[in-house]
């Protein structure tokens, strides 16, 4: 397969071939195929207090959980870090409502979200037997970057939350199972998949509440932190919000983002950087090996030029290379 040095043209062809075969692979598999033989699923009842749900997430080292409404006996959406961001913003603009925030139950999030005018809790879902490709398309259109798998039992027609698929899990599944990812050798700079303009960034001294606002306004999962010259220093992630407000302490909102990041657990693996010359083959390799969610694109001096997220990669695999 193109071992002979036929040069660039060959690389381009192989890339196209590779994307097409990955796409065919996604169409041939179901979400169910992605599930491991045994796994753990944590589902939260909607009558649980928001602050308790935060502890459950942190204790179990997870960042989201499907919700269950026992009154209707139905799946009630996905709790994610953006819900906590909404609560923070609500509290920040209505500090007098502390009581309310403290006693807020998960089923009360809707009102908060209505009050600050953001999208309500994500309720998109898919049946586990549908093609994986379909799950990916549906996931791309949802804000939470993940999709719950919901089944129904045959006799009582009641819903069963089977699992939640994330972009990371799907891309890792692809990286593990598709040898064709090795043929993705075009530099990412050529593919027009890197978000370059409109990457919101902040400084180490920016108040964390402003950064949280940037996350929510841009509907992004991370905000890069740069210095005066534009060198990338660190990144604030939406999931960092969980640690920030642990224990219901909202006082910490006056901190700078640099201070807020001092709460990050020592287990944090670090921010991944790459350049526009890197290839998806190596990127997929990293996805296979470590829990990486995005790559920040820097130039030779370490200045931030863009970001490549898992959504960008997934979108490219699903919809890219369709032209001539």
């Amino acid at each position, binding site marked *: 397969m193109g071992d002979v040095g036929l040069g660039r043209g060959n690389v381009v062809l192989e890339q196209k071939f590779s994307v097409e075969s990955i796409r065919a692979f996604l169409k041939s598999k179901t979400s169910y195929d992605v599930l491991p033989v045994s796994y753990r*699923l*944590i589902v939260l009842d909607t009558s649980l207090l928001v602050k308790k749900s935060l502890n459950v997430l942190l204790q179990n080292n997870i960042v989201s959980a499907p919700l269950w409404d026992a009154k209707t006996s139905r799946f009630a959406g996905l709790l994610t870090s953006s819900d906590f961001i909404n609560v923070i913003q609500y509290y920040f603009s209505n500090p007098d409502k502390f009581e309310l925030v403290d006693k807020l139950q998960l089923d009360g999030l809707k009102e908060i979200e209505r009050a600050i005018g953001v999208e309500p809790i994500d309720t998109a879902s898919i049946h586990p037997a549908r093609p994986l490709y379909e799950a990916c398309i549906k996931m791309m259109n949802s804000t939470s970057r993940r999709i719950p798998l919901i089944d129904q039992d045959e006799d009582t027609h009641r819903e069963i939350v089977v699992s939640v698929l994330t972009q990371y899990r799907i891309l890792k599944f692809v990286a593990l199972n598709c040898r064709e990812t090795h043929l993705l050798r075009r530099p990412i700079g050529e593919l027009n998949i890197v978000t370059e303009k409109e990457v919101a960034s902040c400084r180490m001294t920016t108040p964390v509440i402003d950064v949280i606002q940037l996350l929510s306004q841009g509907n992004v999962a991370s905000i890069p932190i740069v210095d005066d010259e534009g060198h990338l220093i660190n990144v604030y992630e939406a999931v960092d919000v969980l640690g920030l407000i642990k224990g219901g302490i909202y006082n910490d909102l006056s901190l700078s983002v*640099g201070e807020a990041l001092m709460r*990050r657990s*020592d287990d944090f693996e670090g921010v*991944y950087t790459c350049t526009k010359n890197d290839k998806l083959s190596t990127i997929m390799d*990293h996805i296979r090996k470590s829990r990486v969610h995005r790559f920040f694109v820097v130039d030779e001096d370490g200045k931030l030029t863009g970001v490549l997220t898992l959504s960008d990669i997934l979108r490219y695999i699903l919809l890219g290379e369709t032209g001539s």
Partner: protein
Amino acid sequence: MNGSAAVSSSGTGSSSERHHRHHHHRHHHHGQGNGHSQQNLLADGSHIGNYQIVKTLGEGSFGKVKLAYHITTGQKVALKIINKKVLAKSDMQGRIEREISYLRLLRHPHIIKLYDVIKSKDEIIMVIEYAGNELFDYIVQRDKMSEEEARRFFQQIISAVEYCHRHKIVHRDLKPENLLLDEHLNVKIADFGLSNIMTDGNFLKTSCGSPNYAAPEVISGKLYAGPEVDVWSSGVILYVMLCRRLPFDDESIPVLFKNISNGVYTLPKFLSEGAAGLIKRMLIVNPLNRISILEIMQDDWFKVGLPTYLIPPELKQQEQEQQQQQEQHDDGTKNNSEEIDDELVTALSKTMGYDRDEIYESLESRDRTSVLNEIREAYMLIKENKSLIKDLKSDRDRSDELDTFLAQSPPTFQQRGDQNLPPVPPLQLQSSPQQHQPNVSRKIATQQRAYNVAPFNDTNNEEDSTISILPTSLPQIHRANMLAQGLPAASKISPLVNKKSKTRWHFGIRSRSYPLDVMGEIYIALKNLGAQWAKPSEEDLWTIRVRWKYDVGQNHNERIPDLMKMVIQLFQIETNNYLVDFKFDGWESSSGEVAHNPNLSEDEMSTFSAYPFLHLTTRLIMELAVNSQGG
């Protein structure tokens, strides 16, 4: 438990969740305990390794403490038995064991020595120096302690604390129980370094609810507890020695907390100006304004009669430099690099199990990877141990004490070193402009100790990859950078520790009540909830078959089964200990129509959604809890 439910992917689950709190009973760790151990392995009179267990000395917050003696030498030791279950982050067992090995290198005449670590399947047994008395018993027995006598104890305490801080270990729990005395009236501090390792870092819970020695930032629940907290506690200890009472004491805990937080206490008139001044600077509420350990060591009242061996190398170095500057102005350029001591390398490879080449590599390279740093730190530690002994020896008027320190030394590598001291390598002093530099870098190095670099070497022949991890984004480096900027607030923020969930999973619920009473409770609860049950048969009084309307007010389709069936059964686990098990048993339709197949197999049962079952079981358990509280 209301609301949070978890299911395994297999779907069926007749389990309910219960939270278990660990109750720790903290006694004096050298007090009398009731020495009955359930494990034969650790019973009195039995052997562990080379130690014969004599009796239980007490129970610490991390487990039992036993008195034992070394079989061949007869040396008394204490065995601190740590149940692995109380270790923080059980998934980081390896790291914790390394930490304990690190503690083993701590050598200071006024710190209880960790001689050895014995690991068994469920326990980590720390073989520690035995000291029979408590400083505070001594204080209480005496009418009044002179300032001279108190100062001697205080100097020993501060020197030990400084030594540990220098090696990045904060005690965090200095209090009377941890201050022991040997037969020569030397202080020995116990439990250094343990607060870092153990899950149970919660002071208020573990110290008998007596926070008298805890710093304001500790009781106010600030996550950060740095070296400043040990200064505060030492200040309280000094106060107690001099005044024979606590500076902060009140029967009402809220009042006590308020006094500590506001730093409200009184100094008796009889205190000398020097002692009072020092206490005042140690008991400053704002940790940033509080005197540091090194500043204490330079305090005039403190320095009176201070033995040389208690002066940390840093201060000694300063003094020597001053002297040198006075004596000779220029002595040519000094060699900054030190020679590596072969003896130390051997010792290090023996205690920590490092490869010799690895040690040389770590000492020679400037590489900042975690493993190399760890080795370098360990080397520095044992190097200091040696120079400490040298100081002790040169302190002629203290040669008596020296014997006692050395006599206490254990059958480990150190003893060998102690008995026939190899020539101590000449300490090459660094010139003063560079003096602070190594300290800073060493600090960063320690923070990296826990960090493991992601395995990147095996990125298959992708030489052109430019993917990397941004160093400044690593939490340890970020924190060091923030602290280097000297932001006052920054020092108070500490990283989130992902504690392992303390939730344990059980089948059903447990009860110690009389079995018929338990059954009665269940029937009452079922009745209150509107469930129906079949009359139990004579042969099987302990099984209840329940039918319960699952009304979610939504499905009006009559063909959808709406009655959930459940089997509730009482089991005996052991004498006076029963278990109520809840089991899902399929669905029925209230229209009289039986769901198509009344005899479902386990497999088919698991195709049903588990949530309605979990929901109803939760309601039943909550009802049972309410009833039992009422009764």
